[in-house]
């Protein structure tokens, strides 16, 4: 059954429909793959027992019998939920996130909890308090973060899809590092109810798969309106319908030159993207070279807004209602000691930076200015989309790096979000698709970025590109 490991959801659905394989057999196969390969990859924090997985999804729908894994910051009722942090040790989710609920309603089998950077704060997966997930393409290298386990599990052929979350690029970056399709839809399209909050005005749930079709299918399952999320703007629709294998007539694509030629851009990545641009031209697109100048300020803006919101959101972890509590005499000491013991260095740093940029003395210089630049970034995108249909940008400036490579230069690690976080700040949709490999056989991704609610266009263009190339058909060998 070796061909099952890297079968797409579309292929698995056919096998299930034709009864070539049963739901139970497919699930056992996936769980077996985790048992065999995950001691090496370390993508999962927990794999559930098969009977409880089947019992949790009794209904039939568009993902009937298709196993997948959720990042461990998305609530699954009755399951542990840690955000890969010690502070949530022992916590059990008392309700399903809307995304989990919708997946179960569509028959998807939720097999476990995927490792990630602690509270989704990181670009490599290394800040998890529990394990360091490896990149299936090269075990000495990181899979990208923060949705590290979600990406590695799909890239290793353990499951065909996973959910991650992103605040600044945590789905698209690991997707690019692992040769996957990673999507971040328009803000509000997927409800965040049950997603543990990090930066609420930037947080999104996203989907990781090996093909664009599969990605559109999983999005069709989870996007919905939701009264439990006041920012929800989801609509129930079939996002696979736009996948015609062709580009729309008269499509104009803008190449974001100031991103593609940014300082520090790896030459092999830039070359792969130039090659992809020529594919778009062959497919009939008109290509324009443009600059979106404020993108150069997006990482700085993102650092400020995300840390500020993190400082507020993570104040709820105080040792009173959940998880860890330090055994000390006074309430004040309990807060400080619990948070000292429970949070890792990255989380502590972000909270302290957040309170600094929000404080009376510095908010004017930092938080207020960042919000102005944020509005300017969105304005720049809105302006660009008046003349072009979508933008092409690199997802990353360097390929998957080695463990510990940025231990002495954390700022360089944080800057991995430089090309992705502008879409989070502007609330617009973006997907990363595989577009090549470096000479060291490390995957390269490119981003398609579109205006509000242009997911169908992004999927259509991504799918047409995918049909004209075969990057997505290359798999990591374990």
């Amino acid at each position, binding site marked *: 059954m070796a061909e099952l490991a890297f079968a797409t959801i579309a292929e698995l659905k056919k096998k299930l429909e034709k009864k070539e394989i049963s739901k139970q057999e497919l699930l056992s196969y996936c769980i077996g793959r985790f048992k065999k390969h995950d001691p090496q990859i370390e993508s999962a924090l927990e794999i559930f027992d098969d009977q409880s997985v089947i019992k949790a999804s009794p209904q039939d729908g568009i993902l009937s019998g298709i196993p997948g894994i959720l990042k461990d910051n998305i609530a699954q009722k009755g399951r542990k939920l840690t955000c890969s942090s010690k502070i949530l040790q022992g916590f059990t989710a008392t309700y399903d996130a809307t995304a989990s609920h919708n997946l179960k309603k569509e028959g998807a089998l939720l097999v476990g909890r995927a490792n990630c950077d602690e509270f989704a704060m990181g670009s490599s997966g290394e800040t998890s308090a529990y394990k360091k997930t490896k990149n299936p393409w090269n075990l000495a290298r990181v899979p990208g973060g923060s949705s590290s386990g979600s990406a590695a599990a799909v890239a290793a052929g353990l499951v065909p899809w996973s959910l991650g979350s992103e605040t600044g690029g945590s789905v698209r970056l690991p997707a690019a590092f692992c040769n996957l399709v990673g999507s971040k839809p328009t803000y509000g399209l997927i409800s965040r109810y049950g997603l543990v909050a990090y930066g609420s005005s930037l947080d999104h749930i996203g989907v990781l798969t090996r093909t664009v079709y599969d990605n559109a299918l999983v999005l069709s399952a989870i996007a919905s309106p939701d009264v439990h999320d006041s920012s929800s703007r989801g609509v129930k629709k079939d996002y696979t319908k736009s996948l015609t294998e062709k580009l729309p007539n008269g499509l104009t694509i803008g190449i974001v030159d100031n991103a593609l030629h940014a300082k520090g851009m790896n030459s092999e990545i830039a070359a792969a993207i130039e090659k992809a641009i020529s594919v778009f031209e062959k497919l009939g697109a008109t290509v324009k070279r443009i600059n979106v100048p*404020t993108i150069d300020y997006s990482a700085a803006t993102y650092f400020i807004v995300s840390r500020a919101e993190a400082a507020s959101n993570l104040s709820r972890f105080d040792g009173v209602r*959940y998880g860890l509590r330090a055994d000390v005499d006074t309430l004040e000491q309990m807060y*400080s000691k619990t948070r000292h013991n429970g949070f890792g260095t990255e989380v502590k*740093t972000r909270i*302290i930076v957040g309170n600094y940029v929000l404080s009376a003395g510095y908010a004017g210089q*930092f938080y207020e200015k960042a919000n*102005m*630049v944020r509005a300017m970034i969105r304005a720049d995108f809105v302006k660009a989309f008046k003349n072009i249909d979508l933008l092409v940008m690199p997802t990353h400036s360097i390929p998957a790096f080695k463990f510990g490579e940025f231990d002495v230069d954390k700022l360089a690690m944080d800057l991995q979000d430089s090309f992705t976080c502008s879409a989070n700040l502007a609330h617009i949709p973006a997907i990363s698709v595989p577009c090549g490999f470096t000479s060291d056989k490390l995957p390269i991704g490119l981003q398609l970025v579109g205006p509000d609610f242009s997911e169908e266009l992004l999927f259509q263009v991504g799918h047409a590109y995918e049909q004209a190339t075969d990057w997505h058909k290359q798999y990591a060998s374990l």
Partner: protein
Amino acid sequence: MITITKEELLKFAHLSRIEIQATEIDSLLKQLNGVLNYAQRVQEIAKPIEESLQKNRNVWRDDVIIKTNPQPLLANAPEQEADYFVVPVVLDNE
């Protein structure tokens, strides 16, 4: 150039209710200074934009009280008694 002092770090750590040990100070200062010095570049271009380009709006629902069993939530607490979370003494008896 921003240079956060040790005193400032300890002040913001206290505001954040995070205990900092002496051995952590140097590396935290390095990280804080690194990110803040990079982030302050927003000041170079920041200017207010007149028109609002945000299309977002709040989604409201009726504020209805739904009775739920508190036990599963309380069961996640480090310490609980009856229907309450237990915390260290807040007010001194004297």
